[in-house]
């Protein structure tokens, strides 16, 4: 019985095992091997030792494309993750109020998340059009300067601000992408809402007895109780923003435009592999990316002890 159970067990997971070996494990090993090779997909890979990694280090030291991509990715990941945490908590705690029509508000706030990425990218390109876009029109109505959005580089980040840009253009392409990612905050809202409803009432009652007002209740009860979800949000958000591709590819004309300001690691890697046909270099970059993501995730887990409430 026991032996047959294990036979059936292995048989049942075999679809995954086959897929795992063929579509994950083999590619994983192959890309590690190729990262030490020169390979253009058309001819046989040729071993070059650490050349690709040396090139990466060189680019990093000299401020080449790889450095730019790294900085862009960091900018995008940091901004979108931090802002999504803040926005997620703010919105969720508002939507948790027991007001009439709450379900309606919630539904509408969630709706943008079902908009397919391609449609969302097209829509935001239009919303953020510097001349005819809704958002710049709105800014102008408030007497604020029009922004360049997807047509310009960000003031912060890479490449750094052109100082002396008198026209007050601050927001550029990466900020447009961040805005787009914030629009899809609905996914997080649901998780935050679930977490909020799980906070025991007694905690609030106790706080109230201690004379804590609404604000202090938020800082001392709500926020600590939300930290596990925040942690989850940060880890997943990090992984997702590092891997984000479709929307970036679409708004940047497929090449990180303008002036390489949206050339993220994910896009750079894709272009290096399939446009420059430099598979070895792309593989090395992918491995650096993988190690970086692993390190940051591990670091998050380590520090989580200090701030995540269990």
């Amino acid at each position, binding site marked *: 019985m026991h032996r047959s159970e294990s036979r059936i067990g292995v048989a049942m997971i075999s679809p995954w095992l086959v897929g795992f070996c063929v579509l994950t494990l083999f590619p994983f090993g192959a890309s590690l091997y190729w990262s030490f090779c020169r390979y253009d997909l058309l001819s046989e890979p040729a071993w070059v030792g650490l050349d690709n990694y040396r090139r990466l280090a060189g680019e990093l030291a000299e401020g080449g494309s790889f450095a730019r991509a790294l900085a862009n990715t960091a900018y995008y990941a940091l901004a979108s993750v931090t802002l999504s945490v803040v926005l997620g908590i703010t919105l969720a705690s508002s939507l948790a109020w027991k007001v009439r029509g709450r379900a309606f508000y919630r539904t509408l706030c969630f709706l943008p998340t079902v908009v397919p990425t391609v449609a969302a990218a097209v829509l935001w390109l239009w919303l953020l059009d*510097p001349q005819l876009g809704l958002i710049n029109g709105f800014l102008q109505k408030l007497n604020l300067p029009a922004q*360049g959005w997807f047509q310009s580089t960000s003031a912060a980040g890479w490449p750094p601000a052109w100082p002396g840009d008198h026209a007050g*253009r601050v927001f550029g392409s990466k900020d447009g992408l961040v805005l787009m990612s914030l629009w899809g905050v609905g996914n997080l809202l649901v998780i935050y809402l679930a977490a909020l409803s799980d906070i025991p009432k007694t905690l609030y009652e106790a706080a109230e007895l201690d004379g804590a007002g609404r604000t202090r209740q938020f800082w001392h009860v709500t926020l600590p109780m939300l930290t596990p979800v925040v942690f989850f949000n940060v880890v997943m958000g990090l992984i997702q923003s590092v891997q984000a591709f479709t929307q970036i590819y679409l708004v940047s004309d497929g090449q990180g435009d303008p002036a390489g300001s949206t050339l993220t690691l994910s896009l750079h890697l894709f272009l290096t592999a399939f446009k420059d046909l430099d598979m070895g270099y792309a593989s090395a970059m992918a491995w650096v990316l993988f190690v970086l993501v692993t390190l940051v995730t591990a670091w998050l887990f380590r520090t989580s002890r200090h701030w995540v409430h269990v």
Partner: protein
Amino acid sequence: MSNGRKCRVRATNQTNSIEIRTWPRSDISPESLQGRWLFSMTSIKPSAARFAAVAASVVFVALSACGATKAVGLREEVVFWHFWGGRDRPIVEEIVEHFNTSQTRYTVRAIAMPGSNLDLKFFLSVAGGDPPDLLNHDDPVVADWAHRGVLTPLDEIATADELSRLRAWLFPAALQLGSYHGKLYALCNGLDIRALYCNKTLLTEHGLDLPETIADLDHIAETIAPPGQTTSRLRMGYLPDPRRLWAWGVVFGGSFANLHAETAEQMITADSPEIVAALAWMADYGRRYGPSEVAAFRSGEQALTGAAFPLLADRRYAVVMDGQWRVRDLETARQANPSLDVFAVKPLPAPPGGRKNAGWVNGNFFVVPGRARHKQGAWEFMKYWSGFDGHEAGAAVACAAGGWIPASQHVVDQPAYQQALHRWPLLKLFVQLAASPDQVPVPPLPVGSLYYNEVVQAAQEVLYRGADPATELGRASNRVRARLSEVLDER
């Protein structure tokens, strides 16, 4: 439509075979896992299971069969990818249609792959083993592709006689665009030439003449936008575009590559004195107005929509370098607004010791992938569109309709094209420049795209951030050298 029918017939066949497999239970050995799976499915809800099987097989067959290659009767189908969009698209479609009606052996199926991912898709198709038969493109990639062995050299599909005639037939720039290591790999079917568009009305208002020399150009710039102004600018006399170091480098007498050199180190010459001098001249504009000011002026431009050609947008410039396609834009604008400023075009002025009628040229070209299936059909269509081998008259009509610059003087000489020159007088200069041997494309090296981008990036650093021209060009050259020596070693 024959396709749809084929789908359905195969669907029923497939469904039967799957149903048969589910029926005879005794045939299924109890040990077989798949057998048990089917057994338990049928034993619970036979109808549901059968429905699922039928539905699954329909999806299966549809997935596999739909979009399978169409039968095209007796003619060979030439699958043709191109990048043409916008207002040129209908003209391209018409060329294809004309070709198809003129043919009994071949039929061209044109697939538009607009946007920036044509070379990406092309490489994927080559790597995936299913390339198109013919491709029309305009990025400096011929040498790269030829070097990697993914292109069919034209001498494999054209006769020696055809090729020698073709070499004489093409403009020098067009010939250079398609060559790598002395072999032709691509047939150019149109050139993109740039010149200075000058707003004559604006210049006259300031008592200025059209620029004949570099000094004239500087003078125009300083008169219309005096340096040292503190408020944000709305107008410039002239402002060099970092991308056009490719043109000015040649005008200043430089060359971006030494193709006869032995090593990659010597082949890349973007840091040669003439090109550094050209960039230093461009950088003077950055210095005069302040690099950040220049950058701000340019980034404000990026916020203009594509249709608002800088020249036409509120007289943003008195002089702008741009391509021949703006001639048509100007005509369209003039029809909408008869009181539009008067424009003239001039060749790029050369400094003492520089080259006249020089500049940077690119163009559209046809290439046939190495593993294409219908190479002869592709060759016929290439000749038909470019106008080679007796197709000049038809090509002239197409070029006239699009305001394109043909790849050969023989097409220019056709009545249809001469009429276009009459209609669009500004186009004449561009056509004259097209024949100049000093219109130089990005060097045919297997790192063309990278080289182009690195040079542009270096020029941006200099113009927008005040970096040193020699240092930046040296760095860019070294990066390209490193990559080139790697690529050349590959084989």
